[in-house]
């Protein structure tokens, strides 16, 4: 079996790449995809520890995270579409006013 530490390190690397994506990219959709990457990195650590401690609960938590991610993407993309309709831009630097 692969040591769980390897999985944790890989998960940390993926999480950092995701965080960098949120900070560097200006396209709101790519920022969203980076958030998905971070959620996925956390999921990987969950499953690795679930295997390590033979606990099914860890796998179920990943299941719930997936559900939350799906809900978040549906609402988030609807928000992006609504913003694009009013501002004709999804550059997160230009979305700096609250009133449409």
């Amino acid at each position, binding site marked *: 079996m692969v040591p769980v530490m390897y999985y944790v390190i890989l998960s940390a690397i993926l999480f950092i790449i995701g965080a960098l994506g949120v900070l560097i990219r200006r396209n709101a959709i790519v920022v969203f995809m980076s958030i998905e990457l971070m959620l996925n990195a956390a999921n990987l650590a969950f499953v690795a520890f679930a295997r390590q401690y033979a606990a099914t609960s860890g796998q179920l938590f990943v299941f719930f995270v997936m559900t939350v991610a799906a809900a978040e993407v549906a609402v988030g*993309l609807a928000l992006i579409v609504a913003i694009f309709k009013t501002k004709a831009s999804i550059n997160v630097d230009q979305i700096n006013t609250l009133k449409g």
Partner: protein
Amino acid sequence: MTVQLILFFILAIVAVLTAVGMLVSKNAVYAALYLILNFAAVAVFYLLLNAPFLAVAQVTVYAGAIMVLFLFVIMLLGAEKLGQSQVQAWQRPLAIGLGLILAAEMVYILVSGAGGLVVASQGTTINPDFGSPANVGMELFTKYLLPFEVTSVLLLVAIVGAIVMTRVEKK
């Protein structure tokens, strides 16, 4: 080196490279395709970790449903190349610096074990049916029944929210 370890390293390289590809690709469609590859690699990790149910859910929910939604919105808005221009010039170097600090902190915590993250290299021995759909389902519908039901409410709220958000307002 066992077969599992070789498989792990190949997949790790694929996962990291696709994540970096998503980070640097100028076209949002390419970024989405890289992310699909990344999710597929993670799904194979789940298979390595005795989680076949999650591996299939990962492919159908993440690589399938969520990423199709992403691609659909990118193409609907024609937003492949939008959002390139940096308004603040200092923003990118600062972001890279902060990312490196985060990486350094994670390396420190993982190496020194400061976060109480000391685990035995050898995993607990598991039943052959650990993580099988039957096992996961049993736990989900007995111990985690309430969270499961709350999830359905969450999805309903998301559906309503998405529809309200994209509704054309009558003047």
